[in-house]
């Protein structure tokens, strides 16, 4: 039987492939044709073969459980690529570059003159209560004044079809390895579509990442020693840490592999004795980075690392303290940063955000909790949020009290109607909600991945795309359709 698209219901959401069940968008015509010609057996068989490929290729994310230790779960993947026309992507890419430039200027300003506070654009009380502001970083000047070398920003498309920026991840954003592996799997599964669409390649990322990191080397050698610092195999992103190290040809190190000597240089312990390290792509949070400066009980980090970094003896990416801009309250001010530092209008709009810090906005939030999503400043992975529409009244009461007690720590946004794309469900195709996480590399130049990681909420009706909560992913195709 052929795949039944007649029952594909786009509902009230913006579907990226279909205008109606019988009318596909121009860039989706060929994909639709292929789906109709495949037959439902073949569709299910291709999904099964992709699942097998993922198992064989060992693409996993780790879940840690008390009983069973670390479990590797196969990375849930949907075979139907999500197609984005290049002209639209070019605009998004320009907007991301603009945004990350402004974010880096903001971080650098915050750790130096704090011009933006002095000129009244950014409220001092937001800064004063920022959990990720690191006083230890004041006055440090990293190369090219860049603090967030690797940024993962989440883009969503609302019911109106417009792309909004939902959040910026400036600490240790993950997911890029899955973006790269997804492409390899799709090549196995849908080779015929590549002929038709010629999606732009994504595989330049690891080389660009290496170059961006190498620029941070304090020594001018042809091949500086760049390492990837992981918290270890119990971390959910361990697969990615190992993957990136291998792809860049770098050592994957843990904190105990490194030490800082009296000369303030960082060394790794090798079988041939200590060996100098120039740049560390660290995938552990500031808090655990250096027990001498941050959490004293941390065993994941390296004693003296901050000393080495401040002395300019080692490059750190992302720089400690970069997380100051990775805060959902600070997020609400990013459009102001763009205007302030670049004297430009933001090219990608923020999601409408109410800042509970301001009385007027707070009152609106408290009066409309049943329509809003409330987020604390510093949680990730979808934790600690209130989904006002579905929450119980007790839950809403609890959040109202939390907001009143600490207004600076909360923002609220209208419930977004994330766009949908066709996704394989059994032997058929149904709409599922997606977001998009592109990765932006900043060094002497700014580079954006071609597309990014599309995360998809596999559960019917769910808007939560996080892998820890039933999310999967899709390959993302930037396709030159010739239009502008």
């Amino acid at each position, binding site marked *: 039987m052929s795949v039944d698209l007649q029952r594909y219901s786009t509902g009230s959401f913006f579907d990226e492939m279909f205008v109606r069940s019988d009318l596909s968008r121009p860039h989706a015509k060929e994909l639709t044709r292929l789906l109709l010609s495949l037959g439902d057996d073949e569709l299910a068989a291709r999904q099964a073969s992709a699942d097998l490929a993922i198992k064989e290729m060992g693409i996993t994310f780790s879940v840690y459980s008390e009983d069973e230790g670390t479990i590797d779960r196969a990375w849930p993947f949907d075979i139907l690529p999500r197609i984005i026309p290049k002209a639209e992507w070019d605009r998004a890419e320009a907007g991301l570059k603009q945004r990350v430039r402004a974010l880096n200027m903001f971080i650098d300003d915050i750790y130096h003159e704090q011009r933006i506070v002095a000129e009244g654009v950014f409220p001092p009380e937001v800064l004063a209560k920022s959990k990720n502001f690191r006083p230890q970083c004041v006055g440090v000047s990293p190369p090219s004044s860049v603090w967030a070398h690797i940024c993962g920003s989440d883009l969503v498309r609302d019911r109106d079809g417009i792309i909004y920026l939902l959040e910026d991840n400036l600490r240790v954003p993950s997911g890029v390895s899955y973006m790269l592996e997804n492409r390899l799997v799709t090549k196995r599964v849908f080779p015929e579509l590549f002929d038709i669409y010629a999606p732009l390649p994504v595989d330049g990322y690891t080389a660009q990442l290496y170059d961006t990191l190498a620029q941070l080397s304090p020594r001018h050698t042809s091949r500086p020693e760049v390492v990837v610092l992981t918290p270890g*195999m119990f971390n959910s992103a361990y697969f990615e840490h*190992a993957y990136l190290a*291998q792809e860049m040809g770098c050592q994957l*190190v843990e904190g105990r592999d490194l030490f800082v000597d009296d000369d303030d240089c960082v060394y790794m312990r090798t*079988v*041939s004795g200590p060996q100098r390290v120039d740049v560390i792509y660290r995938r552990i949070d500031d808090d655990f980075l250096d027990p001498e400066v941050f959490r004293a009980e941390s*065993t994941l980090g390296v004693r003296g690392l901050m000393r080495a970094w401040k002395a300019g003896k080692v490059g750190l990416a992302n720089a400690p303290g970069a997380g100051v801009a990775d805060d959902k309250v600070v997020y609400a001010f990013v459009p102001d940063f763009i205007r302030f530092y670049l004297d430009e209008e933001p090219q990608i709009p923020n999601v409408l955000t109410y800042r509970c810090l301001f009385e007027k906005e707070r009152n609106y939030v408290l009066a409309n909790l049943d329509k809003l999503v409330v987020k604390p400043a510093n949680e990730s992975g979808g934790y600690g949020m209130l989904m006002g529409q579905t929450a119980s009244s007790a839950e809403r009461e609890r959040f109202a009290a939390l907001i009143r007690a600490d207004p600076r720590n909360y923002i609220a946004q209208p419930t977004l109607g994330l766009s949908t794309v066709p996704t394989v469900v059994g032997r058929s195709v149904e709409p599922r909600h997606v977001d998009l996480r592109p990765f932006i590399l900043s060094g002497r130049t700014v580079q954006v991945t071609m597309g990014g990681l599309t995360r998809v909420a596999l559960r019917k009706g769910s808007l939560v795309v996080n892998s820890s909560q039933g999310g999967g992913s899709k390959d993302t195709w930037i396709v030159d359709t010739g239009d502008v």
Partner: protein
Amino acid sequence: MLSRVAENVYWMCRYIERAENIARVVAVTHNLQLDLPRGVTPGWKPLIDVTDAHAMYEARHKDYGERQVVRFLLGDPDSASSVRCCLRRARENCRTVRDILPREAWQYLTELQLYVDENLNSGLTRSGRYAFLDRIIRSCQMTVGLLGSVMTRDISYQFLRLGRNLERADMTTRFIDMSPSVRQSAKGPDLTSLETVQWVNVLWSLSAYHMYRRKLRSQVQREHVLWFLFKDDEFPRSFMHCLNAVEESLGTLENSSPCLLAVRNVVKDLEQVDVETLEARALDGLVDLLQRGLMDIHETVARMYFLPPAGT
């Protein structure tokens, strides 16, 4: 090469080797009981003696019956002498060094661990035991073979080889040690022919039977078996061969003189002894001496190349 990585590669290989050897000794003992004359029961306790795991064993089981011993050696989740635990640790070590190993190594170890978890109950039954152990032994050999056939002979390979040969040498001494105690714990008549059966058993445990026959062209005799397993330099599981391989690997590393010294001390200890004529008690003493020597080699390697223990 990172010290931690060297250590993980080393232990990964030790655990694969150990898992294979334990599986082998269980398989051989299982077969032996079918060969014994009526009225003679093989003791299963020597298998626990081999692995020095009495304390842990006795905390779990009251007596040394077949069922309990086999369960402990194949399926105990925490004992470093159980196949299941060794394979889990081999895989955990492999996980952190995946980037320097061929991709299939991780895949093989993952598949094997899944197999062991899923089929353990069948492996505990007498009828399912052979297939279960056979699969484990084959998969271990396949993994070791893979590493040997595709890995570049760089430093990481030398650590892999060090781990494998030290574990092998250790297991060979343990299997030799097992034989006299088998004799003591078996109950029944006709002990002289039984002794031969038990030496054959030792040879089979080390996959050494046919090689022994080819080399010595004689019936299985205690003195020849002892010479063959301790001193024959050509059989890859003989103690001397393993130590020569260890010495060779160490020779390729920097700063290895303290380790080489430790190896030569053990070689000297063995060379001074005429193993063929050793009586049971002297044999025990030699095995103890050699095992202490292996421990000393391990500790020297760890001190020279591995990460210092936390807090130092």
